[in-house]
């Protein structure tokens, strides 16, 4: 058979991961920004701007987990044991922030507790996801297709930095989303914090870029000795950062969010270019990690048919809930 199923699946999983990062990124980011919001009214707006769609956003994460099990089981069965404690922290965070969507509006006296649950849940889940990125760059101790390292191997100064970096990144997605969806003093606050968040993201981005070659010699070789075409990704990411800064200064409403999406996409592509085609670093490629071809094919048939439908009705729900979320109005 001439079609490389593993290649197609790598593209699909890669698409699923970036969909998750972009979509759940902005609603997790709102949670990170929660304690800094000027008042309780702004928090209502922040929550209402994502209440109808957050559940769908988070479903991409579940697809990522199930899709990996279906297409690249080695990734699933190595990453999860290796990141055992981190995965638990992420899930606990997602649980608390998830229920606070329903419970916060049912509570007045205890609302501050649900504010905390939403904020800490989002922050911890994001940090854990960022640490996963760092751990992926570092690589895993794998022997005979099984993880053999310790419980906290994933937690190093480098992964702490990537964890904090993703927190800044998601917060930036959140603040630019808020610019798009809010007005008045809430929007003005979002305009004020966005440049600071952008600066934080760029600082971490810079440190990680300098540090990564030290953590992983393969990555250094990739960037220094091989095709120089991949340098386009960081350059395009920088262009997006510039566009973002300009759009915020001019108080444009839609462009900041779009530019942040671009910043994320090009950084992500740069990361993939650093590692490709290794999927369980340092040793296993997408072909080593693949499930049986008949399983990949069985799933592919359905996914190619169903994912466009999913994207269509997801886009439709975003369309239904388009427009500004007004103070005091809410969907609740």
């Amino acid at each position, binding site marked *: 058979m001439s079609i490389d199923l593993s290649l197609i699946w790598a593209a699909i999983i890669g698409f699923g991961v970036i969909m998750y990062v972009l979509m759940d990124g902005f609603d997790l980011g709102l949670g990170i920004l929660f304690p800094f919001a000027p008042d309780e009214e702004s928090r209502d707006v922040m929550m209402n701007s994502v209440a109808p769609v957050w559940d769908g956003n988070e479903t991409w994460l579940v697809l990522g987990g199930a*899709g990996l099990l279906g297409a690249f089981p080695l990734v*699933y069965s190595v990453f999860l044991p290796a990141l055992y404690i981190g995965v638990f922290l992420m*899930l606990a965070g997602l649980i608390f922030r998830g229920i606070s969507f329903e419970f916060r509006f049912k509570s007045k006296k205890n609302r501050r507790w649900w504010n905390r649950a939403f904020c800490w849940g989002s922050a911890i889940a994001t940090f854990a996801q960022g640490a996963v990125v760092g751990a992926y760059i570092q690589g895993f101790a794998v022997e005979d297709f099984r993880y053999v390292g310790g419980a906290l191997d994933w937690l190093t100064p480098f992964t702490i930095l990537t964890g904090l970096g993703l927190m800044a990144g998601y917060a930036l997605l959140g603040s630019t989303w808020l610019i798009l969806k809010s007005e008045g003093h809430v929007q003005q606050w979002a305009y004020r914090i966005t440049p600071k968040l952008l600066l934080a993201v760029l600082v971490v981005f810079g440190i990680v870029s300098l540090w990564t070659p030290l953590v992983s010699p393969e990555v250094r070789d990739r960037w220094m000795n091989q095709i120089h075409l991949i340098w386009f990704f960081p350059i395009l990411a920088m262009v997006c950062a510039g566009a973002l800064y300009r759009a915020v200064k001019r108080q444009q409403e839609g462009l900041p969010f779009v530019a942040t999406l671009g910043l994320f996409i090009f950084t992500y592509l740069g990361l993939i270019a650093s590692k490709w085609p290794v999927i369980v670093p340092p040793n296993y490629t997408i072909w080593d990690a693949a499930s049986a071809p008949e399983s990949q094919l069985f799933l592919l048939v359905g996914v190619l048919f169903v994912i466009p439908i999913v994207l269509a009705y997801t886009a439709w*729900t975003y369309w239904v809930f388009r427009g500004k979320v007004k103070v005091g109005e809410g969907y609740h």
Partner: protein
Amino acid sequence: MELDPLLLSRLQFAFVVSFHAIFPVFTIGLASYIALLHGLFYKTENPAWDRLALFWTKVFAVVFGMGVVSGIVMSFQFGTNWSNFAYATSNFLGPVLSYEVVTAFFLEAAFLGVLLFGRNKVPEGVHLFAAIMVAVGTFISSFWILSANSWMQTPAGFELIDGRFHITSWMEALFNPSFWYRFVHMGMASFLTGGFVVAGVSAWFLLRKRDVEANKKALSMCLWLLLILAPAQAVVGDFHGLNTLEHQPTKVAAMEGNWETQTNVPLLLFAIPDQESQTNHFEIGIPNLASLILTHRADGEVPGLNAVPVEEQPPVAIVFWSFRVMVGIGLLMIAVALVGLLLRRKGRVYENRLFLKTLTVMIISPFLAVLGGWIVTESGRAPWLVYGVMTHAEGLTPSLTGGMALFTLIGYIAVYSVVFLTGIYYLTRVVRNGMHEEQIEVEGEVERPKRPLSAAHTPFDDDLEGANA
């Protein structure tokens, strides 16, 4: 004592899956009920249906939220604690779980947003469509997950190559020998759960004379449903049992507390199984009845637990008693449904306070029955993870230590305790505020007609002590 990662992982999975299971089993039934209410309102324009739909959607939103967050945990649990199992079975379970996500989870999530928040943003027909899609999504989801579970109970359509399962026939694997029994049994359990909860809450409202018109309608519908479903479930359960006897005889032996392969087996009503001495104490049974039920002959031969070595026997006492809890509650459900019919004949079904109070107490019963049933089927499979092929010990994550497993076990118990207690607290608030709130709100909404009424999250815990302080 050395901490045992295997035991702790089994406890953890049992805890997480039990906690998770009670939410979907309720939301599957309730989603269909809400869609039906929306449909009835769309057709008749009787506002009573609309009030019911609004009220039950609020309940649904809270329960669904708890189901979603605990479900996310499930999708990672295979990898964290059972990575050898996940890797070995990935060729089957991976595609099945992925299909569940793309065909069901996205559908539920997207249309739930529209159902909860879209009332004034989409036309009424589209809103009804969203309610139907959420209900359809819950069923598609249960199809895939029960196929996966049934395959682990009665694996089919595969060959083993180097310790990994490779699927040779997707039809045989998906529609494995026990799938349909499990699927129908669980589907009916979901409707029974939804039916008993709605009946119980409606009865509670009727006892307090609140929105009598709407709640009479709701109770009446539920009682007809339960009258058909409760006895039918017993029949389906019997077929399921015969199927289990064919494919997992040891599990049935544990359910019956039958140690020896023998004829004329009595149906034990009470016994204390003693696994160490491979016998029962204090047996009280009906002669020949187990043989009659399982083989349809009074002197039929029934396989016993001693047909397999002791280390391949499931924990007999747990299976034996969970089975009795499930069946006992099932019989109680049939009795309640029949009493309902009797009272309806006499025209006293909405007035008999004892019956209404009984229905309120019965809210808890379907959840206990479902948990009992799952414990029977899951514990009864032990020590097998994939029946007859892979044991729990073989499926465990190799790098997992007892300390890690204990840490997360305690963590999940702590997190879920908070979720469950606050969830129950807010659910009782939602119910107590009930449908009156809607009517008051409708009157107060004249000034701000744009504000949707669906999922109205009016704060109402001001007068009460904190749930999570």
